[in-house]
């Protein structure tokens, strides 16, 4: 029998629990794995002996709690059937076995109150994924949000090799709920936290911040969200490390097209440490300490000139391997100053909870895509890569296959607005999609694409892509789809080429979809230019009676065509063997059209996020000048509202593109693109979507609030067109939009000072796409990014500047020092807990000295 002795209670490390008064509860469950009850199913034969005080070891029966206090607790031995190794851990600072949780029998363990033996106090980890199939089902959810701290108070071992590795749960500071000491209740299957239970244990730093949770059958009614703030994050830890997988518009993506979802590590330092070098390590400890931890990166967090000295963002790349930070893995974040890492250490488990899928869908407009870009192969490749990432996110695929994507994998080519013939439709359902993980791309097998007609019900028309003759001619045909819909901006969808698709017809298809983009209807199959297409009597050029020359900016794609030429490229693409006609003139015209700056199809563009929790987070609006006002009916309407709360404009729209999920309280949509005849003027302070007979279903503030000055660094070689200084200096927000079209070819910093809306549009000409192009050092607090950051974070080890602010007046000064001094040379207790900055269990002058180092002002001066 292997013996595993679970230590509980030692906190040597900084020893800060050592002298603290705390209670430790060890729940020792037992049962048969054959049982169907929650505990019996999941917990095993366990026996623990506990030595309390100087007494002999006392055996506690299974399914019991051991309640000991720091002063009397000595050690706990637990034995687990089938184990043959014994571990012993004593409480206190004398016996430390740094390998105790690295033992072969308890590796990967996740249970609380572990002392890591490296000078750091706890290793607290969240339970594994909460799901139907996990042992935590019926338990509680512990989302990773807010300050990380300890996000749970229960610790269970992982389920490995069909067995639970650590059949014990340890509680620190059990919650006191509504004045009732339910110190053990909530861990048992028979007890539950009553509805309305609120935070418990102020000084123990375990808080419940949501309520309630299970019924009498121990079935979760609502996940308990528990967040622990033990004193750890109140230590001298003025560094915040966040790791996110948000969607970033960063460096390599010169045009705000598809926002790439990537992983970034954001390190914030408090101001008084701005000159300090912080070092961050992220260790992958999933494999346990038997194997050396994987150090993802050792980073000196020093800002470069022009960067925010208090923040550093590390985007994942090959060298730092941050991209490998994955959900459901366990990491340890180490933060230190100077040479050491002993100051801060946290272990976090990445969880999927509340992860969002969030996208920006690109819009092709004349001011965004210019002809030079179309000919920029690297850029096109980049764009396509981004687009594919976007598609991946729109159509998430699990590792197990396509089961998750069926309802998302609908891409269509809807009918054309005002098109008497009804445009063709490309329907690429989930059966046609596959994900090539080796290439990290999402592929629509065009050979399986159905081409249907009159299918306009889908709400999934979202992809808007880019075609480039250079690209296609060299890389083969992609699935090029023109989207033309009454509520959609005409645009192109481009997906990566399929192996099953040759290059034949590439140009034609592209031209065809571009034609749609600019208002041309499709025509019947295999129609040659005939009498339906008038000819110029002089030039014999075809003049389409159907071409929407207005929308097409006067562009007649048939220009240069003769009816004796080959098949009209706007005809159905059902005859790939036939020769379609696209003249060089057409290409030029198409490109020119793309680069026109006037009379672009108008729209207001709304992006929503679909969360896995069935919540809607309206997040961002794009607007384009002009509008298409042909649809003023519908049960939904978009209303712009001014600062006074007055409606500015209202536009009703067809609900066709907004969908609801059964059972959801609120509207849920992935994203909606709506043509709208309003300009998002500076007067607009709020945009609402209202539903008839319901009222506002959600609203979004279109403003991008720039809370602080920030700098946008324009990389030198990117040939960013200049902007009007006066505009910048006056704080006009839309500087980015004004950057284009002017010659500007040097590095510069743009200061933004006011609240406004940013329209991002950049010309990537001559830009080295491998370098950063457009940096927003994140001092800017964009509402969108804030949401991204908040909702997409994987985990966050938040060490904020609350350390030392004992009087909670927002700073750290001599007042706080005086408070600390009142506890000098006293052991830590619940009241002075936070003053033990060095975690040695005593409030000493050493803590005072540490406090002086984090004072807000020099020499801890008063404000």
């Amino acid at each position: 029998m292997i013996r595993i002795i679970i230590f509980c209670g030692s906190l040597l490390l900084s020893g800060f629990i050592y002298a603290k008064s705390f209670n430790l509860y060890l729940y020792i469950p037992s049962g048969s794995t054959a049982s169907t009850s929650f505990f019996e199913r999941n917990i095993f034969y366990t026996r623990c002996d506990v030595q309390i005080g100087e007494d002999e070891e006392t055996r506690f029966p299974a399914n019991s709690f051991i309640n000991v206090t720091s002063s009397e607790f000595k050690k706990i031995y637990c034995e687990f059937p089938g184990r043959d190794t014994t571990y012993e851990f004593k409480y206190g600072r004398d016996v430390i076995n740094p390998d105790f949780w690295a033992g072969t029998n308890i590796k990967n363990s996740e249970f609380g109150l572990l002392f890591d033996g490296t000078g750091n106090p706890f290793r607290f980890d969240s339970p594994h994924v909460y799901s139907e199939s996990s042992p935590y089902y019926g338990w509680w959810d512990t989302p990773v949000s807010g300050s990380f701290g300890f996000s749970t108070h229960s610790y269970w071992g992982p389920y490995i090799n069909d067995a639970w590795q650590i059949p014990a749960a340890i509680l620190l500071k059990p919650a006191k709920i509504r004045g009732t000491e339910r110190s053990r209740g909530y861990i048992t299957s028979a007890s539950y936290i009553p509805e309305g239970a609120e935070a418990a244990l102020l000084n123990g730093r375990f808080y419940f911040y949501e309520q309630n949770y299970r019924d009498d059958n121990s079935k979760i009614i609502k996940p308990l969200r528990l967040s622990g703030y033990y004193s750890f994050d109140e230590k001298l830890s003025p560094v915040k490390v966040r790791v996110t997988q948000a969607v970033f518009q960063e460096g390599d993506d010169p045009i705000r097209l598809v926002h790439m979802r990537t992983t970034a590590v954001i390190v914030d330092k408090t101001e008084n440490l701005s000159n300090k070098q912080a070092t961050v390590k992220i260790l992958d400890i999933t494999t346990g300490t038997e194997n050396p931890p994987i150090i993802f990166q050792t980073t000196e967090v020093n800002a470069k000139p022009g960067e925010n000295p208090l923040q550093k963002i590390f985007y994942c790349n090959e060298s730092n391997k941050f991209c490998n930070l994955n959900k459901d893995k366990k990491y340890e974040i180490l933060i230190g100053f100077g040479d050491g890492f002993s100051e801060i250490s946290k272990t976090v488990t990445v969880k999927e909870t509340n992860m969002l899928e969030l996208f920006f869908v690109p819009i092709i407009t004349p001011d965004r895509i210019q002809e030079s870009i179309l000919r920029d192969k690297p850029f096109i490749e980049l764009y396509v890569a981004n687009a594919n990432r976007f598609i991946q996110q729109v159509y998430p695929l699990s590792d197990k296959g396509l089961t998750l994507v069926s309802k998302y994998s609908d891409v269509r080519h809807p009918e054309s607005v005002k098109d008497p013939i009804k445009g063709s439709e490309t329907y690429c359902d989930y059966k046609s999609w596959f994900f090539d993980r080796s290439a990290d791309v999402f592929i629509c097998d065009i050979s399986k694409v159905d081409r249907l007609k009159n299918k306009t019900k889908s709400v999934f028309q979202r992809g808007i892509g880019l075609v480039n003759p250079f690209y296609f001619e060299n890389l083969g045909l992609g699935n090029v789809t023109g989207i033309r819909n009454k509520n959609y901006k005409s645009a192109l969808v481009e997906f990566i080429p399929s192996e099953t698709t040759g290059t034949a017809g590439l140009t034609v298809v592209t031209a065809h979809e571009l034609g749609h983009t600019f208002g041309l209807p499709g025509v019947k199959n295999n129609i040659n230019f005939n009498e339906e297409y008038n000819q110029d009597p002089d030039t014999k050029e075809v003049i389409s009676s159907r071409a929407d020359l207005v929308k097409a900016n006067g562009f007649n794609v048939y220009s240069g065509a003769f009816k004796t030429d080959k098949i009209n490229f706007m005809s159905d693409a059902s005859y790939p063997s036939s020769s379609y006609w696209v003249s060089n003139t057409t290409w030029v015209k198409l490109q020119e059209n793309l680069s026109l700056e006037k009379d672009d199809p108008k729209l207001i563009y709304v992006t929503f996020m679909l969360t896995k929790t069935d919540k809607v987070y309206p997040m961002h609006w794009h607007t384009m000048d002009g509008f298409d006002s042909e649809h003023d009916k519908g049960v939904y309407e978009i209303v712009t509202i001014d600062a006074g709360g007055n409606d500015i404009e209202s536009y009703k729209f067809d609900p066709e593109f907004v969908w609801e999920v059964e059972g959801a309280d609120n509207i849920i949509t992935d994203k909606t693109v709506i043509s709208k005849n309003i300009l998002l003027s500076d007067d607009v302070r709020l945009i609402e979507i209202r539903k008839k007979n319901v009222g506002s279903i959600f609203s979004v503030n279109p403003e991008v609030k720039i809370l602080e000055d920030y700098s946008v660094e324009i990389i030198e070689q990117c040939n960013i067109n200049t902007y009007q200084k006066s505009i910048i200096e006056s704080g006009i927000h839309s500087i980015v939009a004004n950057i284009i079209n002017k010659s500007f070819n040097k590095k510069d910093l743009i200061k933004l000072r006011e609240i406004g809306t940013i329209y991002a549009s950049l010309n990537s000409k001559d830009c080295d796409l491998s370098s950063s192009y457009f940096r927003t050092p994140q001092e800017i607090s964009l509402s969108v990014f804030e949401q991204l950051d908040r909702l997409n974070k994987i985990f966050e080890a938040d060490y904020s500047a609350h350390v030392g602010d004992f009087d909670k007046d927002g700073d750290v000064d001599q007042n706080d020092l005086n408070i600390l001094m009142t506890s000098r040379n006293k052991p830590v207790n619940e009241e002075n807990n936070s003053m033990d900055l060095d975690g040695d269990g005593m409030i000493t002058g050493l803590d005072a000295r540490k406090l002086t180092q984090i004072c807000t002002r020099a020499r801890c001066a008063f404000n």
Partner: protein
Amino acid sequence: MKLKMLSALTGFLLFNLSFPISAATIYLEPSKNNVLVNELFTLDLKASGLKTAASPSLSIYDLDLAFDPTLLDFKNITFGDQLDLFGLGSFQSTRTPSFGLINIFELSFDLAEDLDNLQLGEFNIAQFTFTAIGTGSSDLLLSVNALGDSSGQPISADIVNSSINISPSAVPLPGTLSLMISGLIGIFLLRFKNNLLN
């Protein structure tokens, strides 16, 4: 009366603090080892073993000085300047938590870099002033509550205590002498008077 020499004093006491980073010596040095009753004397509290213009430096000390309160009367204390290198002030505290015990505390507000770069390796931490009030020998014993380097990390230190010997004064009190003389004069005069009468 038996004298004790400072150099032969108490020996070293090792303080093992958590994570000591360096060894220093904190010692007591009285201005005199022998004083007379009613004599004023000073007692220097000194630090050595630190590195001049290098780490470690001392940023905080919290020390208790124990003495025999029946023999010594604590008058005052003067803090040194090495924890306040620029004269801008430090956090200083003197308490007498019990009879015969003085707690002195000083916390530097100077930057760690300044302390490391500018502080001397050996310096006076503080100077106590006592008055001897009784005869005998009083140990002067230091105990450390905290010693910290510039970043607040504990410093281990060797502690050298001291003692003071107090002797009675060798000079009679003038009032007694005059009384005796007056008495003698009185006796003399009385005898002279008696002789005259006889």
